[in-house]
């Protein structure tokens, strides 16, 4: 890892999200919620989702603590999936996984937008689970019973 690759990992957009997370907070019930954590490193993300009647993500918020990558990735995710259908969000998650794992081209790179800035994670395999933590929580929230 060179300092350049490190700076790629921590691009200013990413640091900005980690310092000033967007959509930060909780949504009061009724909503969908899930807690995600990486027990091995202690990173935590809680995701709250409100769906409209067409299964679109009407609102999404998150809280959490952990490294810049996990928190920024979650923040950037909330921005991108808000207003999307749950199907589109799932497709985006799979595309995002490809980007951070360097596992082939994403199907719809444009949809990912600035999320592609996290491709620096490819060079830091042990950080993949940090980048995916918010997405894993979102996936679980969408499968969770409403409360």
């Amino acid at each position, binding site marked *: 890892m*060179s300092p350049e*690759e*490190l700076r790629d990992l921590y691009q200013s957009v990413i640091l900005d999200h980690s310092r000033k997370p967007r959509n930060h907070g909780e949504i009061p019930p009724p909503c969908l919620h899930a807690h995600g954590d990486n027990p091995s490193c*202690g990173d*935590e993300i809680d995701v709250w989702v409100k769906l409209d009647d067409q299964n679109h993500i009407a609102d999404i918020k998150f809280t959490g603590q*952990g*490294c*810049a*990558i996990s*928190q920024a990735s979650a923040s950037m995710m909330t921005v991108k999936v808000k207003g999307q259908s749950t199907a589109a969000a799932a497709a985006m998650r799979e595309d995002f996984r490809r980007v951070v794992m360097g596992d082939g081209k994403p199907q719809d790179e444009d949809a990912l937008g600035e999320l592609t800035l996290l491709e620096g994670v490819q060079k830091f395999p042990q950080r993949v689970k940090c980048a995916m933590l918010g997405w894993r929580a979102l996936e679980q929230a969408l499968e969770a019973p409403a409360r």
Partner: protein
Amino acid sequence: MDWQRIRDDFPILQQEVNGHPLIYLDSAASSQKPRSVIQALTHYYERDNANVHRALHALSMRATDGFEAARRTVARFLSAASENEIIFTRGTTEGVNLIANAWGSANLKPGDVILSTGMEHHSDLVPWQLAAQRTGATLKHIPVLDDGTLDMEAFEKLLTPEVKLLALVHISNSLGTINPVREMCAKAKALGATTFVDAAQSAGHIPLSVEDIGCDFLAFSGHKICAPTGIGVLYGRMAVLENMPPWHGGGEMILTVTLDSCTYKAPPARFEAGTPDIAGAIGLAAAIDYLEAIGLSNIEQHGLQLASHALEKLGSIEGLRILGPKTGPRGSLVSFHCDFAHPHDIVEWANTYGIAMRGGHHCTQPLMKRFKVPGTTRASFYLYNTTHEIDRLAEVLESARKFFS
């Protein structure tokens, strides 16, 4: 002592990581190995390897001699009364589990108290939680004060006649605190309690004597004191060991066996079922010989000097807060929280400059909660580290601060 020369004994230190000379500051997790230890392993496998015990052929006799000589080396290292008080384990964790099971099952009952502290490694916490569940005993914890030392007033109050066991860490792997184990064991013994000291971070770092500490049990891991992975030691006072039932059953721990029952050997054999890590024990003896040749007091001084230097250098970085005692003796490590970045970001940053540190809860989750941090970054030192490396760490942390702030 020419500490710079010591570095030449460690082949692994002669490498670059990410284009920078490796600065290894993760010895509290696992130490590096001097050439003499690696050679002891090679020598064993190339010349003497065979199974030990009931040995009548030449290789087996050599292996047995080496293995039992290692036991004597460890006994001397700990000032144990006899080599029969030395049980070889995989490491500290197995040692604690052995006591919690073999001693625990015979000595703990509902109403009894296991007294421990709020700064234990999970390996000296979870086995007691499990033992408490099994036996109905209650597990209590001496609180940790803000300065990272134990609340000794609370200790006095918690130390009631119901306390059957005091289990405490000698040097905290997350704070660097050195606990007054001698005084605490003496007080516990005066009330009839059995005592265990987790010496994972003190063995090999400061002179250690079970006679002086006065504990009944003490455990450490070879891999943290320049020895191979897979070998560790549980010391047990013979009067206590003798009355303990076995834990693992199998070959070498029995006297006679029928299909229905068996009788057990005396300690330490009773607690060493199966083929032991013969090469590991021989490697551990080589590591002890190496450390003793340098001198444990010298190593202690060097470690304290590094810790003091780190306290000073890192302590002056803005937004960086060091946990644990700020003055007086401490273990050779500093654990800190940075308000500008998460431990994993710090560790990642440092790694890019060839510096190896660990970030996270260090297997002390309750302690992290206690200090309201999600985890810390820890720089831990050993005999091969230098103040120059700490200066470099301070520079890199300063650059991280600038970058992440």
